[in-house]
């Protein structure tokens, strides 16, 4: 609030006040000047300028009277009674006053008016220019203070708006991130939100192997101190960052400074801010599974100002939250993969027991899923059905090998034993609580629509869909592979046999769905078919030669 800086609005206000206090007319009868200000050039009253100073405000001391000189030097003689008369015959008064917090001397000169009388009585306090000036100065200080408060208020408002924006971006992030089940999607969402939260131009994610994915924020017009420019979250970013730029390289997009920031973050696992060649850079760790550290770099346009402590905290918390979610997703993926691999290993072990049925379970799983899709089954039910197909024969693990692989006809006792395998499979898997549909598939895959199946003799719709599907594909695969007692049937022969059993041993709707689905698959995916069903392809080629 000092008048250190010349020519502030306050100065012009003072000048206006001075002229306002001067009573002008055809003949000026009073003029007011400001002298002895530490910050301003002397402003002598108009009377003095005209009568003594030749119009030059800086001539005080050289021209003009002793009174004016003393006032300009700030040396008012307390003995001099005020008002007093100057050598030119004007009545003058000089008073100390505090204006704009600075001590000054208000020098008032009063002449006679046309009527020949002194116009203003200095002794009336309300007529004292020094007092009036001080009051008006106080008022102007208030005006100035209000202006400052408004400015501060706008500053706070700006900050509040920015905080609201950030808060909403974080709400939005926490809400949206849970909808992703794959790491790439989560990473993209994080990068996009980081770009908006930090008003960054570009966000880079650098993996341990040096691969760098770039997420550019769309250029926004009107930078400066403005908070984030409005734009829809979806429209603001390039659409295909990850794949494209991952191709662009192993860190090719990064400058040396950025690379060293990456190294440093990887070492310290702390957020850091750097300013290589005027660019503003912030980098932080994104912890992934197995203590692997990806580094997220954000680059901001210099006009947006330097990254501050708040930005660092924001990045740290968003990345640690995001890192948790990414690690959990990766862990979840790994567990799922592992359980699938373990299951496959178990299934391969069963198939090994009976060399005739090599690959049978794998194919049954595949064909179950194929048929289920055709019947309109959707994930996650679909996944469970595929597993049921894979595991349906797990109970055979409890049947002696000599019976399973016996060439020739089984005795009724042996057949009774074989019929135990659905129940055995059920009992093996039953302790695994999460298996649900799978257990249905395992237990009932030898039930027939007419009730002549086993183990419970269920009828028609009583048999769970998954079991009806497995029964169809199980039959098909059994028919199209050779047995110790017979050669394999061709696909067409197998389908004929299945159709003959429809309604009695085979569910007609499911069987037809399977036949259609298998037909489409064979036609549309010949390569996959040749890989999974090599024995059928060989058989067809052999038949063609005959």
């Amino acid at each position, binding site marked *: 609030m000092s008048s250190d800086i010349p020519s502030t609005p306050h100065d012009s206000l003072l000048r206006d006040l001075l002229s306002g206090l001067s009573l002008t007319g055809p003949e000026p009868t009073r003029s007011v000047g400001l002298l002895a200000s530490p910050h301003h050039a002397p402003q002598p009253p108009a009377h003095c300028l005209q009568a003594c100073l030749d119009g030059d405000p800086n001539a005080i001391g050289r021209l003009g009277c002793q009174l004016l000189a003393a006032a300009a030097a700030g040396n008012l003689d307390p003995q001099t009674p005020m008002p007093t008369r100057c050598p030119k015959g004007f009545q003058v008064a000089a008073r100390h006053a505090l204006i704009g917090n600075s001590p000054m001397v208000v020098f008032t000169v009063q002449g006679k008016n046309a009527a020949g009388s002194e116009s203003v009585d200095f002794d009336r306090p309300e007529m004292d220019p020094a007092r009036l000036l001080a009051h008006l100065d106080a008022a102007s200080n208030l005006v100035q203070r209000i202006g400052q408060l408004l400015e501060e*208020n*706008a500053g706070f*408002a*700006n900050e*509040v*708006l920015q*905080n*609201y*924006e950030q*808060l*909403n*971006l974080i709400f*939005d992030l926490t809400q949206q991130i849970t909808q992703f089940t794959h790491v790439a999607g989560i990473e993209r969402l994080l990068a996009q939100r980081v770009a908006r939260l930090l008003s960054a131009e570009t966000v880079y994610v650098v993996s341990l192997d040096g691969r760098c994915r770039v997420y550019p924020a769309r250029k926004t017009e009107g930078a400066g101190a*403005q*908070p*984030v*420019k*409005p*734009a*829809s*979250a*979806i*429209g603001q970013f390039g659409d295909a960052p990850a794949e494209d730029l991952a191709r662009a390289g192993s860190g090719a997009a990064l400058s040396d400074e950025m690379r060293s920031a990456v190294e440093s973050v990887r070492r310290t696992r702390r957020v850091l801010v750097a300013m290589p060649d005027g660019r503003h850079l912030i980098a932080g760790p994104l912890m992934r599974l197995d203590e692997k550290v990806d580094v997220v770099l954000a680059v901001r346009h210099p006009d947006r100002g330097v990254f501050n402590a708040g930005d660092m905290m924001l990045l740290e918390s968003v990345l640690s939250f995001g890192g948790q979610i990414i690690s959990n997703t990766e862990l979840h993926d790994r567990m799922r993969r592992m359980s699938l691999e373990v299951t496959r290993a178990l299934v391969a072990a069963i198939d090994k027991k009976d060399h005739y049925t090599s690959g049978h379970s794998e194919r049954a799983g595949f064909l179950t899923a194929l048929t289920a899709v055709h019947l309109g089954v959707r994930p996650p039910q679909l996944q469970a059905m595929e597993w049921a197909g894979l595991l349906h024969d797990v109970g055979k693990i409890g049947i002696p090998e000599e019976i399973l692989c016996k060439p020739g006809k089984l005795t009724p006792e042996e057949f009774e034993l074989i019929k135990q395998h659905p129940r055995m499979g059920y009992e093996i898997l039953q302790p695994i609580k999460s298996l649900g549909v799978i257990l249905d598939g395992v237990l009932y895959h030898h039930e027939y629509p007419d009730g002549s199946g086993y183990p419970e003799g269920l009828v028609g719709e009583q048999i769970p869909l998954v079991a009806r599907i497995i029964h169809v594909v199980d039959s098909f695969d059994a028919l199209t592979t050779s047995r110790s007692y017979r050669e394999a049937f061709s696909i067409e022969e197998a389908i004929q046999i299945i159709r003959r059993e429809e309604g009695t041993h085979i569910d007609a709707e499911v069987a037809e769905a399977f036949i259609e689905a298998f037909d489409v698959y064979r036609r549309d995916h010949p390569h996959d078919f040749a890989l999974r069903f090599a024995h059928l392809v060989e058989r067809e080629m052999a038949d063609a030669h005959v």
Partner: protein
Amino acid sequence: MSRILVAEDDPHILRLISMWLTRHGHEVIEARNGLVARELISTQPVDVLVSDVNMPGMDGLNLVETVYGTGQVRHGVIVLTNRWDHGEIGERLADWGVQVIAKPFSPSRLSELIESMTAGTRRAGRPAHSAGTPDQQSTSQEAGAP
């Protein structure tokens, strides 16, 4: 540039919204309660009404009911509220195409909504209806009569 009336009894929030929208080039008319807002709107129609819910005199919901269908709000109504039942308010006003934003509101979402409301050409007097969540919203359709 649109003429926007902001009805909000909290002076800080009113100033905040007013500052933000002015900075985005809009002409902002401030009202400290629903009655004043209704009075101002009836004197001179506005493009968009941004209103708080809880206000002395006439609350935001009454205000919306009063001006709806009068043609005095040309493009749409946005209701800002920190009430716990903001979800229900949103459902209640959805037929009228009123957008409800929970406080603390996202400033950029507010200005996006206003831009999307005023971008299309619509018949006067019907609040705009924007479909989808704000992040996805880009399409606006005409709202049917309630």
